[in-house]
């Protein structure tokens, strides 16, 4: 293959005056002087310096960039807490149907019955999976679902004349939880984990008081462990009048097996880009619908998709957007949410049905436990022991601390060396309570052979480190870029192309 002299040239650096990819449609109305329509003082001094490139150059540029990306369709991606499961190809085809893709968000509901019915059916399905009766699809991602949860808690409690000030989050929580709490106007209080990796119930009891508005909990936790004390947690939290919030990042472990609603959670968010196959797109789009209990329902975001039964026999029900919700927390975003994501996720639910979703969760848990067992069999546990000796759910957390001490390579080095083996590393340095953490989530869509190979690769890297730790410490070698100077980038930020 002929290599470009510099494959990091930006599209702006490829620009050459006079080239173009766009030919404008014909001006078919009488032309009026520009100054008459938009006087010079309203106009910008010069045109935006967008690139001047032809179509073949654009295509070649972005194809070239694409080859500098690793992706899920190419290889194993056991990124903990991110649920990198296969994204069915059917979903892109149906989302692109013009009836979905070219439907205007302000279309009259009479002309959008297919879309509204789809949304209503997805609401019903998610409510059934969560075990909670009411769903809002509006939040744009998990973090916005969390924000909705905190705002719903506030609205519910203020309606009862209560003004609470604190929200509890376990020390294993995703960073979005505490960030959301602050954004929602509350103070974060951290709850410790016990020696088994569960929420420390004594610490929870000590901190749960009448000022606590809510406990935000991920279950299974970010350690990949089911909170065995969930029933007691529920009693403690509801005992002080707080709400129980379920962070759905790890829902992929329990679909059809148990439900947050049945555990006593009041509010749940889903990550449709995790358990429900919306492709991650290199950092979005996603969607973060929420399901809530009866008592939280009046406060759900506006508008809500509702189904009105037909007044006459035999007529079709009518789906509409209900804006008349006086107790609603209001809007979190424009229009009706990420509809294109709803199409894909609802297609997934239709494809799998109840047995398929349960099987997905069972296989996700099987794959994780198998991979853990295979790593044990490879003899790597001496250096990267599992953080908590229990059966895991859909993911598990290893600690690279003994490896750092004895083999002189850090978790970061192991991660970087994995890149040379064509594997995306697990999530690293999270959760924070595990030293040198590696969080591994294989998902249900991987084969046994892939899992076997991963275990062997980890063993190989550790063996190599025993012989020469320098190899891993300078990895990767075969990737489009080698280790990058992140500190330098933050010290002197260059965040756009200079011109």
């Amino acid at each position, binding site marked *: 293959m002929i290599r470009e002299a510099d494959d990091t040239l930006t599209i702006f650096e490829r620009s050459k005056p006079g080239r173009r990819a766009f030919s404008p449609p014909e001006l078919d109305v009488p032309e009026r002087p520009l100054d008459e329509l938009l006087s010079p003082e309203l106009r910008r001094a010069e045109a935006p310096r967008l690139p001047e490139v032809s179509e073949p150059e654009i295509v070649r540029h972005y194809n070239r960039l694409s080859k500098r990306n690793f992706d899920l369709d190419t290889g194993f991606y056991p990124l903990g807490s991110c649920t990198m499961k296969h994204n069915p190809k059917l979903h892109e085809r149906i989302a692109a149907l013009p009836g979905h893709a070219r439907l205007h968000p302000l279309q009259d509901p009479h002309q959008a019955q297919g879309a509204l019915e789809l949304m209503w059916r997805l609401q019903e399905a998610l409510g059934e999976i969560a075990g909670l009766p009411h769903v809002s699809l509006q939040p744009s991602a998990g973090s916005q679902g969390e924000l909705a949860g905190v705002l719903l808690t506030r609205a519910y409690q203020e309606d009862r004349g209560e003004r609470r000030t604190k929200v509890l989050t376990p020390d294993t929580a995703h960073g979005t939880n505490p960030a959301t709490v602050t954004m929602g106007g509350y103070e*974060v209080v951290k709850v410790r984990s016990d020696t088994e990796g569960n929420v420390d119930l004594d610490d929870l009891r000590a901190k749960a008081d009448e000022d606590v508005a809510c406990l935000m909990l991920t279950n299974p936790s970010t350690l990949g462990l089911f909170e065995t004390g969930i029933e007691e947690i529920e009693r403690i939290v509801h005992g002080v009048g707080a709400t129980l919030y379920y962070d759905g990042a790890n829902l992929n472990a329990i679909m059809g097996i148990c439900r947050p609603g049945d555990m006593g959670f009041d509010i749940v968010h889903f990550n449709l880009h995790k358990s429900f196959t919306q492709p991650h797109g290199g950092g979005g789009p996603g969607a973060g619908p929420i399901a809530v209990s009866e008592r939280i329902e009046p406060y759900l975001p506006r508008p809500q998709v509702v189904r009105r039964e037909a007044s006459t026999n035999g007529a079709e029900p009518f789906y509409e957007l209900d804006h008349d919700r006086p107790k609603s927390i209001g809007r979190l975003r424009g229009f009706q949410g990420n509809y294109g994501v709803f199409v894909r996720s609802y297609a997934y639910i239709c494809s799998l049905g109840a047995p398929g979703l349960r099987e997905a969760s069972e296989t996700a848990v099987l794959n994780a436990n198998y991979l853990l067992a295979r790593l044990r069999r490879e003899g790597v546990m001496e250096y990267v022991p599992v953080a908590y000796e229990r059966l895991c759910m859909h993911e598990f957390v290893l600690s690279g601390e003994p490896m750092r001490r004895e083999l002189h390579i850090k978790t970061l080095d192991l991660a970087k060396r994995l890149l040379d083996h064509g594997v995306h590393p697990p999530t690293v340095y999270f959760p924070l309570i595990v030293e040198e953490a590696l969080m591994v989530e294989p998902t249900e869509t991987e084969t046994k052979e892939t899992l076997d190979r991963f275990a062997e690769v980890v063993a190989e890297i550790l063996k190599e480190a025993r012989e020469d730790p320098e190899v891993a410490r300078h990895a990767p070698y075969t990737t489009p870029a080698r280790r990058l100077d992140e500190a330098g980038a933050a010290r002197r930020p260059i*965040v756009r192309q200079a011109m």
Partner: protein
Amino acid sequence: MTRYTSVTDADRSEMLATIGVSSIEELFADIPAGVRLSRPLSLGQGSSEQEVFEEFRALAARNTSAEDEVSFLGGGMYDHYVPALVDSIILRSEFLTPYTPYQPEISQGGLQAMFEYQTAISELTGLPVSNASVYEGPSAVAAAGYVAKHTNRRKRFVVSRGVHPHARECLRTMAGAWDMEVVEAPLNQGTTELPELTDDVSAVIVQQPNFLGAVEDLETIAKAAHEAGGLAVAACDPLPLALLKTPGESGIDVAVGEGQSLGNRLDFGGPSFGFFAATEALMRRMPGRIAGETKDVDGKRGFVLTLQTREQHIRREKATSNICTAQALNALAGVIYLSWLGRRGVVELVELMLQRTAYARERLTALDGVFGLHDRPVVREFALELDAPVQRVIARCREHGVNPGYPLGRDYPEHENGLLVAITERRTRADIDRLVDALSAAVAAEKPVVGVTR
């Protein structure tokens, strides 16, 4: 076995044996019996790919899309032509299926595309720093409010009534949680009339062009905001920025907006992307991912996520925002689209819309019973006031395959029979003439007869 899993019965037995358990059930032993679901989910039994395709095609067929009628709907999202190359690139697995680029060595493509996107947004807005995207337009306005709150700790937002109603509502949703007040600045003849600004104003927020299509004087607004010691925020429609004085040139501190019109589908409202650009001074307070240029150990140019100490995964409760997953793929579509238009094309496209919009506005306001809601300069959207019940007029136009626009009554009760009309480059002169005929006939038919009570 589902068609998306790959574990055979034989695999399963072998895997269970390796784990040292005898059944799948044992793997779930940590889940207390009291919270187990004792029945299957009530969700159906699953369907073949072909059956799912047919079902979703049938649902799509029950929608009237911009494919099925001559639509003049706008109001924040617009039916622009999306070139074929956008789809062909963003459907590539390497862009469609990776996660957020936490491992830069194998994510150079996505990171460089973010860097290019940031450059394009910076050029459009005239502001030096853009992040790599936020969720969408209206929530971006609330996100700008959060930056203002942290910057000056003041108590009040002044938001123009010309800002998208959904964006104003998003701001109110959040202001409640922050114990902040939202004051609305009225519109006068179509543009914002600022009240006296007191020293408790955190930010003044306007939209360019505003919801009724009118071009605002950002410079005067920015000056007033700064004199009161607050920030000036503009929610911008990105395409008109190719012609209009930029937020940067006008002294605006934060420019945000809805990016759908840049190479993204309508998708009934999402996913699209929001953009967020600001002055250098606000760079470290910005929400979301930012890609930065650096070098690798061999001295080769490369790109990373930078200034991450702002973000939730590092800073937790002290983060500048809780945003994690944003809209990377949609932003990628945005920069591909802007590269396709190019420096000259983007101006030609917006000038074409400006001319057609002027033509449509002139012809429509010449009709009996149709009036301009204001006469301010506009780019690709304008507001009308009808001397007839707008919903009935719309229904009549529809009989002729024309969707004349968005009725303003719900959001602007003071314009009960207002109609917002958007003219993208997909609406030809022939389409506009068809709108003129349909609206003319509909208003004539629905117009109250003088002296007769209906």
